[in-house]
């Protein structure tokens, strides 16, 4: 493979201080895997800069999986920062991988994870920089296989034309399967078309070029917006679940970056899946069933990982770590093992209803920065609608425990624009936050009360595929702004500050979340109009997206805001997270009746469709308590 490093190094030196953070591009980090002799080469990509993507779990896991295959090597690639992209284009240097600094276009296959709805234009920026045709239909045998996966695969239609293959669900087994299929068919001289057809038969694999769009009328009649062009590929693609997760080693080879990145610590995945069943939450649907790794596995993985990386912080990762049935044991054992070494153990997400005095003590670890809780809604009524089963008592109990144990700062996450929301619910957020602040102050010695800080962070509700609220439209940005202003007026305490997400950005997110293949045309038009790094405030431009929508004859508001009846066939009906449509419909009905559904790992099975027989897919180490 071509070594681009001499040219890239030259470019960086020439540019001097004109290129920010050159450490993004140098690789050679501790913990890198080099397999120069491997004949089949895979390039795993995160569609944003190094500092945002390096800690990404999918990148780490899938590189390790592919490197474990005989004769295969995986390398990482990230999108260079905007200044570097422009300079590379000027000098004719294509997008490159890190480990061997090889052009991305020289790889056998390229995998791009789709982490959120604003990464689409970056995908195109990356493909363009790599010199790879943007459309699957324009690629031939000289081009690598372009694959996608990750959360956005559950509504993949806005990305459909750009990818040869889209993988649904967990890739630990599926990715090596597909790559080995690719390798053997290529060796046998098979054509690209034949390879894609064969791949479409592999469970969990969506090959968009083999599914044609149908008319609106046919879509609503049959229930599907696209139809397979062959009889031997499925109408519905079901996500892959890696059955071996719980038994597998929690220790993963980890790369230690030189430059500062987000989540720059040892990340150990302790559990997968969350069945609390919050009705707005796509992750809860995408990753079920719940599977826990054992305390022994986790404790040993943390100790080994710290020894091998030299990190001073470890995070026990999952969607809801305090729900792990052995979490207290794990924290106790880790605090003991790491005592006196200046190493902190953190938990990214704590459930309010499982955060009590004991947890507060255990998660201490010396560094008491800020705690984050997510009540999501300001009134019990709305919390019941969204099935976020936490009460005010849970919140205040957690605050008592945390602030008595030494915390001083707390961040509360809420959402604005949830279905059935009224102004009372918005005022409820202010009331809850202020009462939480009062409670926090009471839990703290008088001379430290001035240090107590409470902050409220509001996201705008984005309806997501495979959730009970997938048929609900997003509220208009003007209405969102009105509610934000109402919230700000309602929060009287100076010590409680309010942050919110830009409604314009959320509008584009909602269009990407709910769109069909027509939105893919908008994505391309937006990119051609200059859109990239949309998740960065300094780059996002609603104007560019609006112009793109006009060019393509797509109504942004129409896609994002239209309220659909539950009988409406959604654009992603052919892509399944394993939960049934009936389940989603039932959950939505219950939402509007303000009735809650319990977590099946602690209560009755909610018949979501994921387990072959009730509870059979769940793997917890011990009994879970609510």
């Amino acid at each position, binding site marked *: 493979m071509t070594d681009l490093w001499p040219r890239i*190094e030259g470019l*960086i*030196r*020439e540019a*001097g201080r004109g290129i920010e953070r*050159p*450490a993004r591009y*140098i*690789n*050679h*980090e*501790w913990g890198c895997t080099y397999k120069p002799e491997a004949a089949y080469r895979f390039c795993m990509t995160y569609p944003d800069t190094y500092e945002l993507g390096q800690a990404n779990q999918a990148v780490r896991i899938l590189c390790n999986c592919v490197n474990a295959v005989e004769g295969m090597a995986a390398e990482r690639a990230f999108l260079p920062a905007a200044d570097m992209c422009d300079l590379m284009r000027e000098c004719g240097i294509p997008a490159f991988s890190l480990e061997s600094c090889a052009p991305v276009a020289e790889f056998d296959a390229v995998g791009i994870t789709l982490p959120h709805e604003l990464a689409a234009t970056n995908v195109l920026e990356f493909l363009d920089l790599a010199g790879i045709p943007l459309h699957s239909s324009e690629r031939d045998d000289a081009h690598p296989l372009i694959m996608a996966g990750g959360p956005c695969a559950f509504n993949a239609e806005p990305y459909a034309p750009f990818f040869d293959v889209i993988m649904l669900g967990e890739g630990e087994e599926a990715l090596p399967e597909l790559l080995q299929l690719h390798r053997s068919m290529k060796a046998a001289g098979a054509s690209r078309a034949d390879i894609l057809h064969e791949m479409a038969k592999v469970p969990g694999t969506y090959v968009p070029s083999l599914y044609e769009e149908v008319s609106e009328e046919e879509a609503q009649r049959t229930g599907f917006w696209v139809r397979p062009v062959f009889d031997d590929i499925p109408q519905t693609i079901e996500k892959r679940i890696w059955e071996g997760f719980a038994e597998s080693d929690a220790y993963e080879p980890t790369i*230690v970056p*030189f*430059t*500062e990145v987000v989540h720059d610590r040892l990340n150990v995945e302790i559990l997968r899946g969350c069945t609390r069943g919050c009705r707005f939450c796509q992750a809860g649907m995408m990753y079920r069933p719940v599977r826990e790794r054992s305390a022994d596995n986790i404790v040993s993985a943390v100790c080994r990982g*710290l*020894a*091998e*990386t*030299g*990190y*001073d912080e470890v995070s026990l990762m999952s969607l809801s770590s305090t729900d792990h049935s052995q979490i207290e044991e794990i924290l106790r054992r880790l605090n003991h093992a790491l005592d*006196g*070494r*200046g190493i902190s153990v953190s938990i990214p997400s704590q459930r309010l209803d499982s955060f009590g005095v004991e947890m507060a003590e255990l998660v201490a670890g*010396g*560094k*008491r920065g800020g705690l984050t809780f997510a009540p999501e809604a300001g009134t019990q009524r709305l919390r019941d609608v969204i099935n976020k089963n936490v009460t005010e008592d849970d919140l205040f109990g957690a605050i008592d425990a945390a602030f008595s144990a030494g915390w001083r700062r707390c961040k509360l996450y809420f959402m604005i624009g949830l279905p059935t929301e009224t102004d009372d619910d918005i005022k409820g957020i202010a009331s809850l936050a202020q009462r939480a602040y009062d409670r926090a102050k009471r839990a703290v010695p008088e001379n430290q009360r001035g240090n107590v800080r409470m902050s409220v962070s509001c996201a705008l509700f984005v309806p997501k595929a495979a959730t009970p609220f997938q048929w609900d439209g997003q509220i208009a940005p003007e209405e969102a702004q009105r509610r934000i202003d109402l919230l700000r007026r309602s929060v009287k305490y100076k010590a409680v500050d309010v942050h919110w997400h830009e409604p314009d950005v959320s509008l584009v997110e909602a269009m990407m979340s709910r769109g069909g293949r027509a939105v893919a045309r908008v994505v391309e038009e937006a990119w051609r109009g200059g859109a990239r790094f949309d998740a960065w405030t300094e780059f996002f431009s609603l104007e560019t997206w609006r112009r793109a929508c006009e060019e393509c004859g797509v109504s942004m508001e129409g896609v994002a805001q239209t309220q659909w009846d539950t009988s409406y066939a959604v654009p992603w009906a052919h892509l399944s997270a394993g939960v049934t449509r009936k389940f989603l419909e039932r959950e939505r009905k219950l939402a509007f009746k303000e009735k809650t559904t319990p977590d099946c790992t602690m209560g009755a099975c909610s018949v979501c469709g994921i387990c072959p027989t009730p509870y059979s897919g769940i793997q917890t180490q011990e009994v879970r308590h609510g």
Partner: protein
Amino acid sequence: MADFRLRVTFNKSGRLGMLSHLELARALERAVRRADLPYAVTQGFSPHMKIAFGAALPVGVESICEIFDVSLTEYVPAQEALERLQRASAPDLMPRAARYLQTGEAAASVAFPISRYEVRLSVPANALRVPEQIVVVRKKKEKVLHPAEFIRSMRFGAEDGQGGECVLAFELEAKKTGSLRPDVLLDAMVKESGVQDARVLSIVRTEQRPLSATV
């Protein structure tokens, strides 16, 4: 507390020349942990490793004489500590010597105010001129520096360079009021001389030393 202070001398070379001082500090701390050295930890609410670094090196400047001091709670023979560190280090950030400090020895960041740099250039070094003053921006304010105050010596021409490369060597003194960065000085010299297409190929700190006893 009877901490043992180990001073480690290391190289900063190759691609890792592009690391900033903070990035370097972070990388070294991690190497110390990987080496499983019994490092001391500060007391208090947010315990962290007791490690101190030498004078900062800008992005793009390499070195064969960087230092850090790490406090250990137990005595590990210096050679063994060095070997453990080397096994845990990236090749371009390689420790090459280690010794324990005597009581009262100056801390890493202030012990060696004089730094010697060797520079490889794309044009003959004697084509460059040192300007009278250099304007730098510090904390959004413009500040005027006089190179003569910082430059202790300067030698033009191929000295230790191989194969006819153009080498320039100079010594800079870090003052209490501030320092003149070697890369800033070179950029100013290139600009001042007006030589077309003059490029700095590499800058390497080759020595750090204390102020001389006599001028």
